């Protein structure tokens, strides 16, 4: 029954094109809400059910009966992650898209809403279907619909270009997954996830896994396959970037976990590979984030960092399976999975509030902002909450997942052998450095953009956005606080998923330890909050009875300060830039003053940092290929005789090769 409902809802999505303009948004919202309710109901069923699995079969006769939806606890978890962010994203979209409503045609919005719906549906399908072919179809729909969402402002040349580059990179990833599935199909005769188990039991695992991993990692944004991310996120409208960064890239993570379930051999090597790539991603992701001036691009690089942290959890989990270390397995995977949820919450929150800032100040350049806290208090507070959570600071949700990942590693240190301990300590050091870098990055982003005085006309004219843009952001904000303060409620189901998915019987490991620590974290977080509040209340009454005066900021004797003299984001990152120079290759673009130039003319200064990976992995090879192709273009003469000659040569070659029995 509910399957038919689901199919009807999917089919209804086509009606978006025919609904009158004024109702279009509400109709889409209604559809999304229905699907959210239905699938959340399914996944809650799975969580409460005993066998932890639910099979939703398509009615017989529909698509030959091959279309099966199987929801296990892992899928159910991802469904909930998708539902929260997609729903809040669409609520937010109303206010964000309002300025575009005038003067643009009906079709543009129809396509946008339709693509949004289908991005949602395809993500749900990705986590629910097990058949390889349907999986690939859903994966493809996901790429296409998100492409249409990215190019919402297609009239801008840069955005169109970014969109197409995004589409190409997505298909590159798809290509790897396709090859992997074809290999499985040739070996086992069937093309679905379950046949992976058969394949892995008799063939070398690492090769096929790497194919899947590369395919999924392009979606997830692991370095060095991340190059689409920092381009596509800033180009897309903010609600779309929130959904893409919050949940769509997690589909890559889902794919990786799904494949890991079936692995049989080589687990240690695979775990180490994942850990190394993740560590590089998390460190370099945040390192490149620091030097960005574009707020949304900065957030995009931070997604790479967080994907790296998730990967660290998963990678240590795999090593745990390989070394039969249950503690590491459970902590690693639970930390990784919980970070999937956490990141979807705070990253969507950050993208939404960054979108509000863009709406209000019409710029994404941090250097042009400043003083926004006084103009947009609610947005600023939401952004601050997101920043604190993304830095992994207690008492917010990011801390809980990072804590789990840390604990898995610290707990296994004493029991593991030489190489593992060395690796673990490097990962611990790397993760803590990542934490420090994240704090550096977000104190910069928040401090420069929201605090101090307005740095430009644009910022000083900004005003708080409308309520319909602020209220939806409260949903992720509540979850952030809830997971941070009452972590037990969330960690227990997640460890349940892990123990079931990876066949670890019950909560064999330290049954009391984990919840006990989490409860104590909640208690001390509570004490902390209480302490802050008491102090502030006391401060309020204390200051009431003292003389409080206002004046200018202390300028160390200088009496004519101007907003231009404030620390900029470039100067904030200057020291750091100096240290990270070899990796970031920051360039200064300026003209030196000539020796005999007595009255220097006006000058500009710009600092730019290249994405080293983009430069060497994409731009350079693409350059070589286009050079080569230019030479081949010599053959394109336009003379019909030449073309006939080519055809003749081709036939001759085919004939010769057949004759020599080469083909």
């Amino acid at each position, binding site marked *: 029954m509910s399957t038919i409902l689901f199919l009807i809802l999917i089919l209804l999505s086509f009606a978006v094109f025919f609904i009158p303009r004024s109702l279009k948004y509400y109709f889409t919202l209604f559809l999304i809400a229905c699907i959210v309710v239905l699938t959340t109901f399914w996944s809650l069923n799975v969580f409460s059910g005993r066998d932890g699995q639910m099979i939703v079969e398509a009615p017989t006769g529909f698509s030959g009966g091959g279309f099966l939806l199987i929801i296990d606890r892992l899928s159910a978890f991802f469904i909930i992650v998708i539902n929260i962010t997609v729903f809040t994203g669409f609520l937010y979209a109303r206010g964000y898209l309002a300025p575009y409503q005038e003067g643009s045609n009906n079709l543009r919005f129809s396509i946008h809403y339709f693509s949004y719906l289908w991005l949602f549906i395809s993500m749900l399908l990705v986590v629910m279907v097990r058949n390889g072919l349907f999986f690939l179809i859903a994966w493809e729909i996901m790429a296409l619909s998100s492409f249409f969402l990215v190019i919402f402002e297609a009239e801008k040349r840069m955005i169109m270009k970014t969109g197409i580059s995004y589409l190409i990179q997505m298909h590159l990833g798809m290509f790897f997954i396709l090859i992997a599935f074809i290999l499985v199909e040739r070996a086992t005769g069937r093309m679905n996830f379950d046949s992976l188990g058969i394949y892995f039991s008799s063939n070398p695992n690492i090769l096929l896994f790497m194919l899947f991993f590369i395919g999924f990692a392009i979606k997830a944004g692991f370095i060095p396959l991340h190059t689409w991310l920092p381009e596509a996120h800033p180009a897309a409208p903010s609600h779309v970037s929130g959904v893409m960064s919050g949940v769509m890239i997690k589909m890559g993570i889902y794919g990786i976990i799904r494949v890991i379930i079936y692995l049989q051999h080589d687990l240690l090597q695979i775990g180490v590979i994942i850990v190394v790539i993740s560590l590089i991603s998390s460190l370099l992701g945040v390192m490149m984030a620091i030097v960005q001036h574009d707020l949304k691009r900065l957030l995009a690089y931070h997604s790479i960092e967080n994907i790296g942290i998730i990967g660290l959890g998963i990678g240590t989990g795999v090593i745990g399976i390989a070394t039969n270390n249950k503690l590491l397995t459970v902590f690693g995977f639970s930390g990784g999975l919980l970070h999937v949820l956490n990141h979807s919450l705070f990253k969507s929150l950050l993208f939404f509030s960054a979108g509000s800032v863009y709406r209000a100040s019409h710029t994404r350049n941090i250097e042009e902002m400043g*003083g926004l806290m006084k103009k947009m208090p609610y947005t600023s507070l939401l952004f601050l909450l997101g920043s*604190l959570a993304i*830095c992994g*600071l*207690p008492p917010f949700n990011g*801390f809980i997942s*990072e804590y789990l990942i*840390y*604990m898995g590693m610290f707990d296994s240190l*004493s*029991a593991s052998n*030489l190489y593992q*301990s*060395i690796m673990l*300590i490097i990962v611990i*050091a790397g*993760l*803590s*450095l990542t*934490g*420090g870098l994240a*704090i*550096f990055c*977000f*104190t*910069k982003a*928040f*401090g*420069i953009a929201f*605090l*101090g*005085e307005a740095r430009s006309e644009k910022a000083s004219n900004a005003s708080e956005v409308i309520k319909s843009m602020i209220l939806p952001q409260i949903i992720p904000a509540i979850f952030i606080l809830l997971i941070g303060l009452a972590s037990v409620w969330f960690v227990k189901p997640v460890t349940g998923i892990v123990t079931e998915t990876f066949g670890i019987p019950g909560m064999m490991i330290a049954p009391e*330890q984990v919840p006990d620590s989490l409860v*104590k974290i909640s*208690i001390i977080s509570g*004490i*902390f909050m209480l*302490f*802050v509040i008491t*102090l*502030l209340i006391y*401060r309020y009454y*204390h*200051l009431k009875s*003292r003389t409080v005066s*206002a*004046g*200018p*900021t*202390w*300028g*160390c004797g200088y009496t004519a300060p101007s907003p231009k003299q*404030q*620390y900029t984001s470039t*100067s*904030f*990152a200057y*020291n750091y830039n*100096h*240290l990270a120079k070899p990796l970031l290759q920051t360039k200064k673009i300026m003209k030196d003053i000539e020796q005999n130039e007595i009255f220097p003319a006006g000058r500009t200064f710009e600092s730019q940092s290249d994405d080293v990976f983009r430069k060497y992995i994409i731009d350079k090879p693409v350059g070589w290929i286009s050079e080569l192709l230019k030479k081949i273009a010599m053959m394109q003469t336009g003379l019909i005789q030449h073309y006939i000659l080519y055809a003749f040569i081709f036939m001759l070659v085919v004939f010769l090769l057949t004759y020599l029995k080469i083909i």
Partner: protein
Amino acid sequence: MTGIILIMLVSFLFPGVILRTKSIASGRKGPGLLQPVYDIGVLLRKGSVFSNTTGLIFQIAPAVALASIFCSALLIPFADQNSVISFDGDFVFFAYLLALGRFFMIIGALDTGSSFEGMGANREALFSMLLEPAFFILMGTFAMLTGYTSFAEIFRHFYISGNQYMLIYGILGFYLLLQIALIENSRLPVDDPKTHLELTMIHEVMILDHSGFDKALIHIGTYIKFAIYGSLIFNGIVPAKWNIFLQIGLFLSIQAMFAIIIGLTESFRARNKMNKNPKFILTLSFIALLAFVVVLILTDKLI
């Protein structure tokens, strides 16, 4: 409970001892031991001046910072006794909670819009970021050595193995904790609290605009932070099973020694050049790695 009471007690006297040591080393008589406490009293009686540029963040930052320091003090055990709240991985929470306080101090400094405070904020963010791995490697090393993951359990089992290399290990750990404490508290050789040029300050320049009550909170926070690191050092040096009264005596004397070491360092050495600091701080991480290798040998994993 003894731990937190002792930490609070010591934190009142600690800065006084440093001041006195410095005075004596430079040939002056110096103020009384309780002078810093009187200073706080003065600050509490004063009113406040707020810059027009500042807003909410500037107002709440000192309170959040003090609360974070106070709550992290709750995690510090004393000898054989548990801390007020003790759980697996409490040192992760400890480090991140202190980072939360620092986060607020940094954005509080940026809230003033002053380029001097921006400079201080940036340095604080950079240096504390570089310091983070050293603490985590050290705690990881402790965890590997003892097989436990909370402050209380680690220190309880610290001297049980009875290995004769323990001394090397103890010295490395002591040195690291001392250096981490110095950097965390913005003392020499990374930062000089008594410098008179804003361009060369780190912590002091961040709090240029704070006055009255807020400034008092910041000072109290710094004092408690000293005592916290002092008691970490104490826990690392003194075996947990000794008699409690002896422990208390040793605690007080080690804290006093810690303060005197700081005072003497500040009297007899110059501050690092600012651009040498990153190297100096990163070196600590590598010393921590050295300690890690020592433990690898101790636990028979290597060789």
